[in-house]
């Protein structure tokens, strides 16, 4: 059965390909000079040729006088040829027609009185399958409309102010599926256009729409040029909405867009970082300065406690995994055992646009994965016309923004002495020794460096009428500012589109990337592979990096009496590496079943392979304790996706605009993991590659996580008179992760928009160029809970009989067949308006999200034999307000525009089921203080602890007796801060003058608190490790009296809560675009465009935070452990020069 089926499909495909090939050959036989035709030349060349009647009627060419002659014909139910003969005879036109016309016996009716012959002829064939052609000499013929040949529309699009060519402009015919994009030279080309008159529209992000009428004739090229004017309203911006696109004008939901220009202005290694400060309500927290690290992205706050809060990323229609837990085997020693960010696999230069779907009406089309918002990434595609080659490169240097003020060797020695004396011990340093010390070792200087980064990007794109391609590659090399850390990426992309026939298109998106990164070992303070940064901060400056013989100093730390964990030796000696291969892509076939009805079928792949290595040789801790210690883990995940959608866009007249979408999506993920650890190596030479030679083995694990999703999706967009807009969305998701009783979920949404600016009474006000009110409600889900959680499972429980290890398996998870998704209900009310001739455009949104049925691991009665069960209990609310204002301040030779956004989000835990508070823990090893709490009535990410009330007479911290019961007990702990900001935002100013462009992105976060665990360690005043210079300054507050035996303060208190508010100059960039006439005179010749720029990232930061950097989150990817600074790899500032060239 299957074989027969396959054979049949093969035959069909062969037929399709043959058909496509035939059409291709026809078209390539078109006259060579066709594309540079103009109206005038076309008119002169048409002599002797037949033109479609409608072209002639449009007046683009001189009309034969006979066609203007008035005729009167009245025939009912007559043969077409008879009616035409009547008209031709009266007008004096010649008439000829083929045998097929005669055989067809088409019956028509015609009733014209005193009308031009042209009109009569057109009326005669209206509604038939025939078409009238005429010659300049007045000869009329009739052919089948199907057989008519096609023409070409071409032209150039420029900026009306500068005259510069505009790339990336979509030029398309209204109500017909013909479209193209302009290349870097601003030129576009639409092929296969049937003869006729079209309303041709040019749209580009940030520009007003241009429309003109063009008449297309067979085998001819018509030229239509556009000069677009910058528009702040961006009404015509094309917005990707998932399984389709729309214009911002027609949008009913809340979608923030970031264009390729915005991205290209900021040389970032990873896509998620490009969102920072760009989109209202999208909070991006780059967790550290480790190159390649992931950012925590929160769209309108975090909904979930137990499942993921990260948005769904969809790259060219392929939802990709960003779940670090799925990607990591825990073999690298990074905090939380997380490796590099899977999204970092994408070359930012390949991105055409990023659209962030925020409200439920926009996201519901992604159903059970949409509750945290959806980020749609669209990559660049080839454009017909001349081949465009882009070459870009930048080189940058990164540095830490600041180093912490620490004691030098002399200060340290005196401080240690003081601690010893206070501890009634003999001071270890004599005055003579102290005098001889000098400044000692600056360990920060020893581990930080000025780190270069370089990027090389090459893209080739182009194509012709039928075949379009975008081919690119990039190489990114980023060294980290901490020695021994780096991130390299090599990627390759091929996006290909082939038009097989007017109705049938196929193509693909495909990217492969390889990343290799050396990650700074950081498994928490006090652990075997503790943070290099923290070790450098605490390392005594009295210890040298290397001994006199040139080897790393790894002996006993004379101050602490313990083995010294030399940060330089660890940074350079430990292997802590992740290598990823990733393939993301899909192939599609699109077929127009009927006019307006398109079937699209895609087969997508997200392949992710990560190898994680760790090796600590005997010269570093922990290898020195275990005679070498190595691990390797490999996680390989293959996700297949098949999606089939039908889009119907019927022609319903001028008043109604309807688009219907229906589809089926099947997705399945298969994973394979293996990890192992060895210790006791005879030699360090083989490192982690010789695990088999280890003396002992630990943690040998394999796993094969699987999941699948089966979904049905539908959407209706309806517009009435461009004034009343409605969107209805529904998706049914079936997930293998849910219980058998709740396997399918339905996620509906509805949105209405009213374009009040189309109403007469608003127009009369003369204030608004655009005014739109949006209201949307919808339901989305979160299914990101790991696999098999609804099933009863057995766990490995081994026992020893005699001396033999016997394998056991016992129940370890109780089935919850009712387990289901978290449900988020969201209401969004939005207002868009633009005034002052679109120079001021404002978008404001208020939203209220309530997430119910939280996926929580709740305690169940112990008599069950189980401690807890994953259940749907509890709820969280996020409410907020977002405002985006875009203005064009100056539009002349000196141009100035501003994009400003700001967002407030208020998060509150409403219900935790049987509990009123949870202590999630999870603040890493060695912190010894874990002030995390989740409490009903409070926001997530609250810190919980005591109020610091000064030092007692012994110089130790004391805390406030909050409840006044006379003693300080755990009951005196209160909420002492929250990592969530009051508001965040960004402002981008762009100034243009002739060929120069200056853009500045400022970004801010206000009211968020940082829990600075580093400070607890760096002010313990125990005389065992280096300290902040604050310890010398009694007024710094909270510094215990120096004394041996002090331990670093482990009581969570306000002492370590700091304001994380900051204002940051995220990016500044000055670019010069060379004029094309200058370029043409260059000896190099064929360069079509050239831009050079200098830029700086994080060039300015205003904050009161005392740590390295306020943009920090040690446990970046987690839900409940935000806002901690604990040996975190600091953020960097960066200077870059680069160029973008087009050839």
């Amino acid at each position, binding site marked *: 059965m299957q074989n027969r089926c396959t054979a049949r499909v093969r035959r069909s495909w062969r037929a399709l390909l043959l058909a496509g090939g035939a059409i291709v050959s026809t078209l390539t036989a078109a006259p060579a000079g066709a594309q540079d035709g103009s109206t005038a030349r076309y008119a002169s060349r048409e002599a002797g040729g037949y033109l479609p009647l409608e072209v002639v009627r449009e007046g683009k060419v001189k009309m034969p006088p006979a066609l203007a002659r008035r005729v009167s014909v009245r025939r009912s139910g007559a043969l077409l040829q008879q009616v035409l003969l009547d008209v031709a005879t009266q007008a004096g036109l010649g008439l000829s027609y083929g045998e097929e016309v005669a055989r067809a016996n088409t019956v028509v009716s015609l009733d014209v009185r005193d009308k031009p012959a042209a009109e009569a002829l057109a009326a005669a064939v209206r509604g038939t399958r025939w078409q009238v052609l005429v010659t300049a000499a007045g000869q009329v013929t009739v052919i089948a409309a199907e057989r008519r040949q096609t023409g070409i529309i071409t032209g150039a699009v420029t900026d009306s102010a500068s005259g510069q060519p505009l790339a990336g402009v979509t030029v398309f015919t209204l109500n017909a599926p013909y479209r193209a994009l302009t290349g870097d030279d601003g030129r576009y080309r639409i092929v296969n256009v049937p003869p006729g008159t079209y309303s041709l529209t040019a749209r580009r992000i940030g520009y007003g729409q241009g429309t003109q009428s063009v008449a297309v004739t067979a085998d001819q090229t018509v030229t239509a040029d556009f000069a677009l004017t910058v528009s702040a309203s961006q009404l015509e911006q094309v917005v990707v909405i998932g399984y389709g696109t729309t214009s911002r004008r027609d949008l009913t939901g809340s979608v923030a867009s970031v264009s390729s220009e915005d991205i290209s202005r900021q040389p970032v290694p990873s896509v998620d970082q490009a969102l920072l400060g760009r989109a209202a309500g999208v909070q991006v927290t780059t967790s550290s300065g480790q190159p390649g690290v992931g950012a925590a992205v929160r769209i309108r706050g975090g909904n979930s406690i137990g499942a993921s809060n990260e948005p769904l990323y969809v790259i060219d229609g392929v939802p990709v995994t960003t779940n670090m837990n799925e990607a990591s085997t825990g073999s690298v020693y990074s905090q939380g055992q997380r490796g590099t960010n899977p999204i970092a696999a994408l070359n930012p230069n390949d991105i055409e646009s990023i659209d962030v779907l925020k409200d439920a009406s926009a996201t519901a089309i992604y159903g059970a994965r949409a509750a945290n918002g959806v980020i749609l990434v669209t990559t660049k595609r080839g454009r017909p016309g001349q081949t465009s080659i882009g070459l870009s490169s930048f080189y940058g240097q990164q540095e830490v923004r600041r180093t912490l003020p620490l004691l030098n060797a002399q200060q340290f020695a005196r401080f240690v002495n003081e601690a010893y004396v206070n501890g009634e011990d003999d001071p270890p340093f004599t005055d003579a020794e102290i005098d001889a010390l000098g400044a000692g070792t600056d360990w920060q200087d020893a581990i930080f460096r000025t780190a270069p980064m370089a990027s090389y990007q090459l893209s080739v794109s182009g194509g012709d009428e039928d075949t379009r391609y975008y081919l690119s590659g990039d190489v990114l090399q980023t060294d980290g500012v901490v020695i021994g850390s780096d991130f390299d990426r090599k990627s390759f992309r091929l996006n290909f589109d082939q038009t097989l026939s007017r*109705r049938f298109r196929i193509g693909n998106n495909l990217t492969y990337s390889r990343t290799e990164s050396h990650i700074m070992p950081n498994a928490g303070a006090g652990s075997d592979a503790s943070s290099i940064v923290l070790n450098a901060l605490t390392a005594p400056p009295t210890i040298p990096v290397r001994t006199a013989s040139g080897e790393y100093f790894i002996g006993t730390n004379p101050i602490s009496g313990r083995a010294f964990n030399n940060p330089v030796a660890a940074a350079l000696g430990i292997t802590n590496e992740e290598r990823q291969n990733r393939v993301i892509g899909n192939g599609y076939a699109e077929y127009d079943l009927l006019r307006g009805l398109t079937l699209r*079928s895609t087969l997508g792949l997200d392949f992710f392979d990560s190898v994680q290595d760790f090796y600590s040789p005997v010269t570093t801790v922990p290898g020195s304790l275990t005679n070498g210690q190595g691990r390797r883990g490999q996680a390989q995940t293959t996700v297949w996706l098949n999606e089939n959608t039908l889009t119907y866009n019927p022609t319903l007249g001028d008043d109604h605009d309807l688009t219907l979408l229906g589809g*089926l999506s099947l997705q399945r993920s298969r994973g394979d993991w293996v990890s192992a650890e060895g210790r006791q190596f005879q030699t360090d030479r083989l490192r982690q590659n010789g695990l088999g030679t280890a003396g002992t083995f630990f943690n040998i694990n394999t796993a094969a996580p*699987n999941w699948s999703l089966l979904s049905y999706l539908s959407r209706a967009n309806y517009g009435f008179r461009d004034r009343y807009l409605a969107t209805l969305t529904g998706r049914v998701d079936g997930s293998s992760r849910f219980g058998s009783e709740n396997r399918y979920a339905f996620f509906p949404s509805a949105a209405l928009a009213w374009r009040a600016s189309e109403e007469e009474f608003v127009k009369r006000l003369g204030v608004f160029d655009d005014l739109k009110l949006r209201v949307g409600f919808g339901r989305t889900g979160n299914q990101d809970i790991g696999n098999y959680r609804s*099933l009863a499972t057995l766990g490995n429980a*081994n026992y020893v*009989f005699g001396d033999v290890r016997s394998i056991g398996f016992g129940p370890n998870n109780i089935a919850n067949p009712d387990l289901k998704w978290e449900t988020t209900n969201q209401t969004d009310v939005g207002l868009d308006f633009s005034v002052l001739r679109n120079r001021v455009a404002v978008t404001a949104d208020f939203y209220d999200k309530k997430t119910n049925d939280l996926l929580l691991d709740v305690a169940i009665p112990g*008599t*069950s034999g189980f401690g807890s*069960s994953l259940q749907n209990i509890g709820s969280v609310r996020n409410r907020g307000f977002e405002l985006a204002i875009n203005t064009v301040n100056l539009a002349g030779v000196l141009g100035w525009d501003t994009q400003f956004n700001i967002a407030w989000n208020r998060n509150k835990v409403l219900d935790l089921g049987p509990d009123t508070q949870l202590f999630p823990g999870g603040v890493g090893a060695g912190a010894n203080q874990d002030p995390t709490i989740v409490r009903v009535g409070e926001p997530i990410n609250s810190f919980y602890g005591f109020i610091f009330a000064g030092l007692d007479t012994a110089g130790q911290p004391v805390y406030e007796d909050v409840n006044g019961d006379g003693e300080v007990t755990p009951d005196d702990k209160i909420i002492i801060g929250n990592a969530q900001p009051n508001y965040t935002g960004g402002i981008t100013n762009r100034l243009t003058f002739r060929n120069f462009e200056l853009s500045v992105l400022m970004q801010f976060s206000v009211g968020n608190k940082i829990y600075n665990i580093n400070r607890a360690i760096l002010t313990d005043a125990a005389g065992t490790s280096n300290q902040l210079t604050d310890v010398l300054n009694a007024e710094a507050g909270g510094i215990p009296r120096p004394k041996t035996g002090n331990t670093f303060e482990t009581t969570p208190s306000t002492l370590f809560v700091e304001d994380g508010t900051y204002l940051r100059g995220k990016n500044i960039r000055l670019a010069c675009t060379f004029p094309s006439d200058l370029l043409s005179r260059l000896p190099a010749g064929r360069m079509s465009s050239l831009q050079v720029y200098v830029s700086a990232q994080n060039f300015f930061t205003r904050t009161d935070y005392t740590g390295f950097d306020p943009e920090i989150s040690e446990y970046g990817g987690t839900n409940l452990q935000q806002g901690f600074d604990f040996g975190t790899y600091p953020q960097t500032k960066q200077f870059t020069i680069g160029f973008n060239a087009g050839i």
Partner: protein
Amino acid sequence: MRTYSAWSAARRLAPIGGLAALLVAGWACNDFLDPDPRDVLAPENFYQSRADAVSAVNATYEANRAVYLLSFWYMSDIASDDVLPGPRFGSDGQRMSAHTFDASDDFPIGDQWRAEYRLINRANAVIGRVPNIQMDTALRTRLVHEARFLRAHAYLNLVRFYGDVPLVEQEVTSLENLEVPRAPAASVYAFIVADLQAAAGVLPATYSGDDVGRATRGAALALLAKAYLQQQDWANAAAAAGQVITSGVYSLNADWRDNFRIAVELANPESIFEVNFDGETTPGGGSVHTLFSLPDGYPGGDAYGIMTVTPSAVAQYAPNDVRGLGGTFINSPYVNEEGDTIVWQQPPGPAYIKYLDQDNTQNLESRSWVAQSNNWISLRYADVLLMYAEAVAQGAPATAGSALDALNAVRQRAGIGPAGALTVDEVRAERRREFLFEGQRWFDLARYGQLDAAITEKTGHPPKGPLFPIPQSERQLNPQLTQNPGF
């Protein structure tokens, strides 16, 4: 012309056909969403073979390690009159020893409750599912009865700690009906007796090779004796203990210390049932008193020094009792077997040394939380002898010879002279000397009716009640659970 139409038709139909096929596939493939766990065992793909049956029972033994990790001896010994906490003991131990704890002390009271029921659920899974496996019938019967032994073992702890407890007889597979009410202690005991009688009828007297350490007939009978004894059913207790004595399988170790030597764990003739901790292959808590009870600074690794022996416990040992100084406890300074003198400040009084195996290099040189292989001794022959003696002294018929001889065998092995007559008090005193810190004292005091007196002597006040409280955390989850008197 016609050809073109055919192509056209093919082009139209192929995608439609493809979509239709996919839609059908989507509807038809109901198993597309089946989770298909390949790396996780589920009840549906387990309990099918002999090996599965053995593994399921092994996991039940494994659950016993959690039962005897820490909380058991917090409740059975630290709460008794044998242990005083040192100043460094955490608040949990202080509260337990001072009897200031209440139902909200989830460690150890809630931990112990949950660990016992975790074992019971695993045992119930075996008892419910293994009989359906097609396999060697004799082995299958043995495995099921090993699980019944372990289940009874857990219920005996529960009923002795908490009194009336929920009697869960079936594996829990659903979140429905989890609020099980407490069953009267008498019916819990009846359930225990039924399990143990059945197990005693089926389990083998001994095992060999890789099976050493599994529950034996002797273990079932010894535990049965313990269950009867606690109910003061002296005749049945003596009869069950007598069966162990007359079986001839067990005898006292000549050297009392051999009971605690890792090298002869399970293999010594006195061992009846042990909870096997193996620090090498299964790192875990092990028998962690080794670290908790050794004095601070004791060389060779972790030594927390947080517990001291009560004066009344020290006072009971005659100077020549091998179980006294150097056997159960040591004083500072102490000269160890290697001749090193050890001095400590913590604990300030006599420190426990009972579980330090001075022949074991790991115990001596690399003690740490995760790597102790000292077993927990659940049942040993001395216990059987003294149970027999106690039951007979209480008036039960002597079915297995002289009860005085049984008592004196234990005394003489300890290096103290024989008792002249069999009295209840003699036996009680001997039990305390013999089993100090072996998890017996709380239950013994409860059986003697001496809890109030003993605890008052230690703390100045009687315990809040004769039983431990039902954990508050469990009462919140299960409103059916009533609280014990005094809490």
